[in-house]
């Protein structure tokens, strides 16, 4: 056994019983298998193509206390603890997540509770559902978070998930989200991360879409320490459409790695991907987006764009947009750029009396705006504009928008 995974295996050996007691049958069932997978695989090294740009073992090396607190879900419509879910979750839980991924296996092994968002057929959820994950505590803590989103036929929902950290301790989040979007469903899913430099986040999101379904996912990494987001989308029903967007603002020593896969399994589907990064100081950004068009998935339309702004010479960007196509009647394109703020634009603005600092801010903000503008809710858009602006000015404090201690 590799040394780096020992603390987790030892922990499970001690606390496994407690975890099972606090959890429920459906979550306990795959634990033993997950333990086996995790021990066999160990943390992925940089030789594994999808983990090329992130040192997982290093992120998981510190001695974290592992949180085993069950969720408290009260008064939120459509949201349930897994043990109180209105449906049988057996056909959904851990069915889509990549069980051959060590981090998913670790999550399956250690998660005590899961949040289930279930929207029955033909139901439109009136107001957006907001889930706030608040990292709090004096101790260095690891959290294993699990979310299951099930939208039945023609259901519609908007979900905003935010990550915040209240205390200046080290936090490690390992999250797995599974989304089942039924035929004709509409889901808008937004993730906003505003934590601090000591926070590490590993997120694996698995989405499966049925016929004529529509999904829009945007992830905002506004403030973080190390972040690694994996997104796997399977288009399983004809006529489905997915929009995957993301924006990253990073400075200091932040590290953000987005790794996406859109799997066109059937024909007549559309996918659109737009990721934008603004990198300052010694931050490191990585983007790898793979679009797979399987044999027979004709009439696929797919666009992928990754644009990056490096503001200093010590910032680094790795980008890798990939197309893998096994069908001939398709229109696919990808583009990616790495550049800097244009001197002409700066000159133009300074000529008109805008100070250089302000001009740079405006240009960065405008660069990010393209992603924000794809969000259909005005309220969320305004909020994000406000947050991005504050972030770029360096004024975004960890308590922004959090009412916990007010």
């Amino acid at each position, binding site marked *: 056994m590799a040394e780096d995974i020992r603390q987790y295996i030892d922990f499970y050996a001690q606390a496994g019983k407690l975890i099972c007691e606090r959890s429920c049958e459906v979550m306990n069932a795959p634990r033993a298998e997950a333990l086996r997978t995790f021990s066999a695989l160990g943390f992925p090294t940089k030789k594994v193509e999808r983990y090329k740009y992130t040192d997982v073992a290093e992120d998981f090396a510190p001695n974290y206390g592992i949180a085993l607190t069950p969720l408290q879900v009260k008064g939120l419509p459509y949201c349930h603890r897994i043990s109180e879910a209105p449906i049988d979750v057996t056909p959904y839980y851990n069915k889509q997540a990549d069980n051959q991924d060590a981090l998913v296996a670790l999550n399956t092994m250690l998660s005590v509770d899961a949040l289930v968002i279930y929207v029955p057929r033909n139901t439109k959820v009136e107001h957006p559902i907001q889930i706030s994950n608040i990292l709090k505590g004096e101790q260095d803590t690891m959290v294993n978070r699990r979310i299951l989103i099930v939208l039945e036929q023609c259901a519609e929902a908007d979900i905003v998930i935010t990550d915040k950290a209240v205390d200046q301790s080290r936090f490690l989040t390992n999250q797995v989200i599974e989304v089942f979007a039924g035929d004709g469903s509409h889901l808008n899913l937004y993730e906003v991360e505003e934590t601090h430099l000591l926070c590490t986040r590993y997120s694996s999101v698995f989405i499966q879409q049925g016929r004529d379904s529509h999904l829009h996912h945007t992830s905002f990494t506004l403030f973080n320490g190390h972040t690694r987001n994996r997104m796997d989308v399977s288009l399983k029903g004809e006529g489905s459409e997915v929009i995957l967007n993301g924006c990253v603002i990073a400075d200091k020593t932040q590290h953000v790695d987005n790794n996406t896969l859109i799997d066109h399994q059937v024909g007549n589907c559309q996918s659109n991907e737009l990721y934008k990064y603004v990198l300052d100081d010694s931050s490191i950004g990585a983007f790898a987006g793979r679009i797979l068009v399987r044999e027979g998935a004709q009439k696929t339309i797919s666009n992928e764009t990754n644009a990056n702004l490096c503001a200093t010479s010590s910032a680094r960007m790795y980008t890798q947009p990939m*197309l893998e196509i096994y069908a001939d009647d398709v229109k696919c*394109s*990808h583009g990616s750029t790495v550049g800097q703020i244009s001197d002409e634009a700066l000159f133009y603005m300074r000529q008109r009396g805008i100070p250089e600092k302000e001009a740079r801010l405006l240009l960065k903000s405008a660069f990010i705006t393209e992603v924000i503008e794809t969000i259909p809710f005005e309220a969320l858009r305004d909020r994000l504009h406000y947050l991005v602006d504050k972030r770029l000015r360096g004024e975004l404090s960890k308590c922004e928008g959090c009412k916990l201690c007010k």
Partner: protein
Amino acid sequence: MEEKNVFVREVAEKKYQYGFTTDVQTEVIDKGLSEDVVRLISEKKGEPQWLLEFRLKAFRYWQTLEAPTWGHLKMPEIDYQDISYYANPTAGNSGNSGNSGEIDPELMKTFDKLGIPLEERLALSGTAVDAVMDSVSVKTTFREKLKEKGIIFCSISEAVKEHPELVREYLGSVVPYKDNFFAALNSAVFSDGSFVYIPKGVRCPMELSTYFRINARGTGQFERTLIVCDDDAYVSYLEGCTAPMRDENQLHAAIVEIVVKENAEVKYSTVQNWYPGDAEGKGGVLNLVTKRGHLRGRNSRLSWTQVETGSAITWKYPSCVLSGEGSQAEFYSVAVTNNYQQADTGTKMIHIGKNTKSTIISKGISAGKSQNAYRGLVKVAKTADNARNYSSCDSLLLGSKCGAHTFPYMDVHNNTAVVEHEATTSKISEDQLFYCNQRGINTEEAVSLIVNGYAKEVINKLPMEFAVEAQKLLGVSLEGSVG
């Protein structure tokens, strides 16, 4: 209908017209690879001690490696002990000894048939050829004429004997033997290839060209080419290759090294037409090549142009290391795959010097059941202020069973760099075909026209004679793939 079938079959059969073998007395050493074999090759070539040591170091290093598997390829298992590493078709004669040696008429005929006349009076004016069959250079033309200008153009074995100081200085300086698995293998067992040296301020008056031919059964070809272009010099170099039709896979693992000095310019063009295997994917050459140019001097320029139509598997990334300030590199590629061919090819542009520029234009065409991948790296080091790269790679799909893939990698470590990449994948639009059909052009011809138009951007970069050949090749490679 019947008549059409006959026609189609005829076309299919004549598809690979270089598939013949030459019956010539060939000295082939026993199969297998060991230190003794490396020593034997070195001995046969009468090499000095330093080169033998270089080979042995590479061989020992190679033994510690495992074959890479990361390509987007289904590679047949290669048994390195089942290949003969040296085959000499000039065994009956003296081999390439400049202009004086007698050449086996059978070999002359072979190269005539391939369209590469070895007699200078018959040759296309303006092209000097080094003809390499299996492990041995058969003949190098126009050597005397080039010598007047101080240009050295000969096989690498002769260069080792006649210009050891040059070879020793540059061999392995661009592609070290530790570079990768196949580079280590080649460094241990390489046989012939070309050596070119253009002295300061000389513009090479003719195109230099090497023609590679695999003939003997059960062998591989491991040639090594070294081009050194000194300050303010210019050379255009062409490479062509063919092999007989065989059921077995033959291995071709070459190394090409190019050194470009201050204000010098090198153009390197390849028309690769190794035997691609039959329509069922049996046989064919495995083309696993390491090609790299080092732009050492200020304002040096290097361009790679490749037309890849042959080989069962093509796995190569002609690369440029841009360390000279203001150096410029270009990569133009057309890769065609048909039937069961597989290609994973592209380039690497490594920007180290200030104000360096690179352009990548890659066109992939896949038909039949083939898989065609572009993989490329653009790396901008911290020191490469104002580096500029533009990459564009397009794929064209003909048929619903083939695959086209793009895997570009961009690593940018400098904020003044501007790096762009774009890629598209599509098939020939029905509107275009309809337009041609309407005007009385049948579908096959229409496809050929459209493909040629699509590849024009790259083919235009080839020297004229090659461009004509490449265009014909494109047509032939895709025949039978429509409908």
